[in-house]
């Protein structure tokens, strides 16, 4: 049983980052509950039989294109004895056969073969009432929107567009605009922190203008640039945006004690983006409940999928992509700007280290609480970024889904 406790809406009880019972409840209520989880890109499985391993929460799933061109998602767990039957990260298959006893599933996850079903010479074999239809893989409901694939364990889940909502779709469709996507490659990292800290980090524009010396010194994202936060769908999703400007001295720069105005890059072409997406926003980070961040920083676009690994660790799987019509110069730009991101990113290293240090700080102190009152108590969208409203909205929604108070 999880003790119910009165919690101020502006406080974060630290046990939610470490308690194994809360973690199990998250798997059940969030990842296997009423949520659309990002699993991958349609472009990763272009041909019938193409598959790629993914995951939802801590459950491994297979995303596969079937013979009719549809995408199916099922758990990577044989219905017989539980073997994670798919060994390859990606590939092409006519069917999936578990190596242990060679139970075979088609591309829709239906059981189509059981060796020695009738025994040998009449000895052994499955009982007379054994039906393959009762032993298929656990198959999820799937939706694709402009090349991004989502799946849910909840068969009665409302459509994806309804789940994301019209305000989020403006940004979602800005990146996934219907053009054919081209996968540029992957980065993966294990981070020794609770999965929520990753979403919180993105939903916290207050830190971006302070922690990231690289970003603020080169004007990629700063608190005194035009920017906004969008909070949508009862707080479950949020988008943080910014407009890049050349460096100017302002009242705010004095409080950015880490800003290094004299910093110059020898290889500066990396930071010369071209305008590509509609509108003036050069940065739009979408934190989509519960497991993905859709990143657009200048010309680098990627999904960051979160894999939970117990309460104290998670993985972040980055899939960088461009569009089929990109010329070589645009691809080069995307590859170069990716230097900001990932396990070796000029910016992301800061986040990884701080998230791990947060886990180290909160871990031994489950009865302590964090404080989030920057910009008061509101949980609504703001046309500025020095606010913790997206964090308050996140925790409010989280507690409601978890029924923690």
């Amino acid at each position: 049983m999880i003790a119910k406790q009165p919690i101020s809406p502006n406080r974060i009880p630290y046990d939610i980052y470490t308690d194994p019972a809360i973690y199990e409840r998250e798997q059940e209520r969030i990842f296997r509950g009423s949520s659309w989880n990002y699993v991958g890109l349609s472009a990763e499985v272009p041909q019938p039989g193409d598959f790629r391993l993914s995951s939802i929460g801590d459950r491994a799933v297979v995303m596969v294109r079937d013979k009719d061109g549809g995408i199916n998602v099922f758990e990577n767990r044989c219905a017989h004895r539980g073997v994670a039957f798919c060994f390859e990260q990606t590939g092409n298959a006519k069917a999936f056969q578990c190596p242990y006893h060679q139970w075979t599933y088609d591309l829709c996850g239906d059981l189509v073969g059981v060796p020695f079903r009738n025994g040998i010479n009449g000895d052994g074999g499955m009982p007379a009432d054994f039906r393959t239809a009762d032993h298929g893989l656990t198959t999820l409901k799937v939706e694709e929107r402009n090349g991004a694939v989502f799946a849910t364990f909840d068969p009665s889940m409302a459509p994806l567009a309804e789940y994301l909502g019209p305000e989020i779709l403006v940004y979602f469709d800005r990146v996934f605009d219907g053009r054919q996507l081209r996968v540029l490659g992957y980065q993966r990292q294990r981070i020794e922190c609770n999965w929520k800290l990753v979403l919180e980090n993105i939903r916290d524009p207050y830190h971006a203008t302070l922690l990231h010396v690289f970003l603020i010194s080169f004007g990629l994202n700063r608190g005194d640039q035009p920017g906004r936060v969008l909070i949508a769908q009862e707080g479950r999703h949020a988008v943080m945006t910014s407009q890049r400007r050349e460096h100017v001295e302002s009242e705010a720069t004095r409080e950015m004690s880490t800003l290094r105005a004299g910093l110059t890059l020898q290889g500066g072409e990396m930071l010369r983006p071209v305008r590509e997406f509609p509108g003036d926003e050069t940065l739009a980070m979408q934190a989509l409940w519960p497991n993905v961040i859709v990143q657009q920083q200048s010309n680098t676009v990627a999904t960051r999928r979160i894999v939970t690994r117990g309460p104290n660790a998670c993985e972040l799987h980055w899939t960088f992509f461009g569009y089929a019509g990109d010329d070589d110069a645009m691809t080069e730009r995307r590859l170069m700007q990716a230097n900001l991101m990932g396990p070796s990113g000029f910016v992301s290293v800061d986040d990884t280290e701080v998230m791990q240090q947060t886990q180290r700080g909160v871990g031994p102190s489950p009865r302590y609480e964090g404080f989030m009152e920057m910009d008061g108590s509101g949980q609504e969208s703001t046309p500025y970024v020095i606010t913790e409203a997206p964090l308050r909205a996140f925790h409010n929604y989280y507690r409601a889904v978890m029924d923690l108070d």
Partner: protein
Amino acid sequence: VPVPAGVKTDIADLYADYGSSIDDDLERWPDFFTDDAFYRVVARENYDRNLPMSTLMCRGRGMLIDRVAAIRETMVYIPRHVRHLITDVRILEAGAQIRARANFAIYESPADASSHLLAVGRYYDAIDTQNGRLRFAEKTCVYDGNLVAGSFVYPL
């Protein structure tokens, strides 16, 4: 064509020095590259499938110098030591440029924790020999375990 023993020794020394520069004296690391060198750190899953995305990618020595400056001045991270073990240096082709490869294992030792294996993989390199100096014109550092434990703060 057999590679002269002296060249083999020189290349082995180059790799040993390269590792030592990152471990002991990061400011020296860019000096191991030509002015227009191409340096990348890439996950095995990308390299094997010819996917162009790198985890770290630099064109020109200027970008390597920027990386050193960022490690020293802008990036925020727990202090740590890294230690390169570079083995099985092989010369694949010896011409105007030398193509070589070597295996690496890099251990990381945070100030308050035990050492752990940070990365294992292989360098695939082109080495420039002009003006009697051996410098990397291309260096591709492929790490075999695709899942990075935390961050690569230092270059591989």
